[in-house]
């Protein structure tokens, strides 16, 4: 029973990791570049929302909307500055280093916005539910639903819309997509905006269940998102969702077994194991065998 309870807690929390990893994976899949400033963009988005909340007051819905909008806007700013100028050139390292620099800038702006280290991030108060002796926090169930809706929306957009078709085409073969009339500059903006919405949703879910935000959230979410993405398989969206859930699951169990101070060590240990046994991540191998283009670009 304890095992079930821990697994459930882990998977509920893992749904937020899945959103983080999806944002990373989307950017990597389409631009073939790692965005190191991703976590900091989410931090700044949340910091803006908290700042607005402290000055004029927002309800939970308002806080959510401001968080995801601000995160998307900051993400677009990062894209214009670090990624857009290098599209179509061999600027893989240039983009990554530029995003590292922007990471520092965004962290600094966030600290200026929220001068004391800890600020309240009001959550949604819902009582817990008990099913078959399993306790579920109400807000975490809500989080799971929000994550499911966001993930389904992303997959629907990619599968069923004209723009999704174009995004998949650009991820597959950017040069040819250009040939078929794709506006590469617009694809970059929309990709980063979608990643911002996903990441902003994730930030809201995580911060509202923590109840507070600190400037460390930027680095923390970059690492969690990257680890979840690598576990699942770099560039694979289904893999990102699985990786996120798996990370939540593993963290809950290692915390339960060894205590919170060993949580990250155990998680990284498992990541190393996965990377040794399946270097492309859990879902990444089949993907990479056929994806010659991605191979050349890494």
């Amino acid at each position, binding site marked *: 029973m304890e095992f079930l309870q821990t697994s459930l807690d882990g998977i509920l929390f893992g749904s937020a990791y899945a959103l983080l990893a999806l944002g990373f994976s989307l950017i990597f899949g389409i631009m073939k570049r790692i965005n190191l400033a991703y976590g900091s963009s989410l931090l700044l988005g949340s910091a803006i929302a908290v700042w607005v909340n402290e000055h004029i007051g927002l309800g939970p819905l308002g806080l959510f909307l401001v968080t995801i909008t601000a995160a998307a806007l900051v993400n677009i700013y990062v894209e214009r500055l670090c990624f857009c100028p290098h599209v179509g050139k061999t600027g893989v390292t240039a983009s990554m280093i530029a995003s590292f620099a922007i990471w520092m800038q965004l962290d600094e702006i966030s600290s200026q916005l929220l001068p004391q280290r800890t600020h309240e991030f009001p959550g949604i108060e819902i009582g817990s539910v008990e099913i078959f002796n399993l306790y579920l926090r109400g807000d975490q169930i809500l989080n799971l639903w929000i994550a499911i809706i966001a993930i389904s929306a992303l997959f629907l957009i990619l599968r069923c819309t*004209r723009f999704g078709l174009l995004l998949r*085409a650009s991820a597959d*073969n950017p040069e*040819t997509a*250009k040939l*078929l*009339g*794709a506006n590469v500059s617009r694809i970059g903006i929309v990709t980063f905006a979608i990643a911002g919405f996903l990441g902003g949703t994730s930030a809201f879910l995580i911060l509202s269940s923590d109840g507070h935000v600190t400037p460390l959230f930027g680095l923390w979410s970059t690492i969690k998102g990257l680890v979840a993405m690598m576990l699942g398989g770099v560039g694979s969206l289904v893999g990102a969702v699985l990786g996120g859930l798996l990370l939540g699951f593993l963290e809950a169990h290692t915390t339960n077994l060894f205590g919170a101070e060993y949580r990250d060590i155990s998680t990284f240990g498992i990541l190393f194991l996965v990377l040794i046994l399946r270097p492309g991540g859990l879902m990444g191998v089949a993907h990479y065998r056929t*994806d010659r283009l991605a191979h050349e670009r890494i």
Partner: protein
Amino acid sequence: MALPQTQVGATDMLSVSNLTTSYGLIKALNDVSLVAKEGQVTCILGPNGAGKTTLMFTLAGILKPVSGSVQFDGIEIAGLGAPKVLQSGLSLVPENRLVFPLMSVRDNLMAGAYLRHRSKRIEVENDLEKMYERFPVLKQREEQNAGTLSGGEQQMLALARALMSRPKMLLLDEPSVGLAPKIVDEIFAIITQVKSEGMSIVLVEQNAIKALQVADHFYFLDQGRVSFNGNPNELENEDVIRRAYLGQ
């Protein structure tokens, strides 16, 4: 440089004058002028590095020319960029096919009609059925990833994808490259069929003998310049090839 003389009768669909394209300091195309007529196959021949693919990319709007003009169907398209060039009715089938390997055959074809999706949804669906009629093998492989098709099937897919944009003129860059002789014959049969339906085609080929069989007019490109041009009927194929590759 004066525009070259071509047959009378058909109207000029594409006329290129004094086109120059550079990669940095190197001029890949140097003052190229040529004309492609409506309903005809105009063939561009030349050895490796002559600038054939550069010419195709410049016409399709991928590369920006340094100078010169490209008139297509009455409008100036030089330097407009790929989306606008495609919208004006000029569609490129790139060298080595370049299909989307991880997308289904159907999605590849739909991506070809990307610019028409919003306004003409039903028309696009109809065109898709027409492509399946013309290339039954694509219908069979509809849900398969394009990367799993054979070279010849990928070439058909690339051709069908280009036709999905309902072009007025097709630019074919080396459709026979890397294919077995029997498949090459099939591809050229399709080119002849597309031409007989009234499509104007600019064809780049290394396989000069095959290309001259379908061409109405040819240009020979050497080191970024048009070295000579003519009508395949006026010259023996062997003469063309001798003049072209041996410089006689």
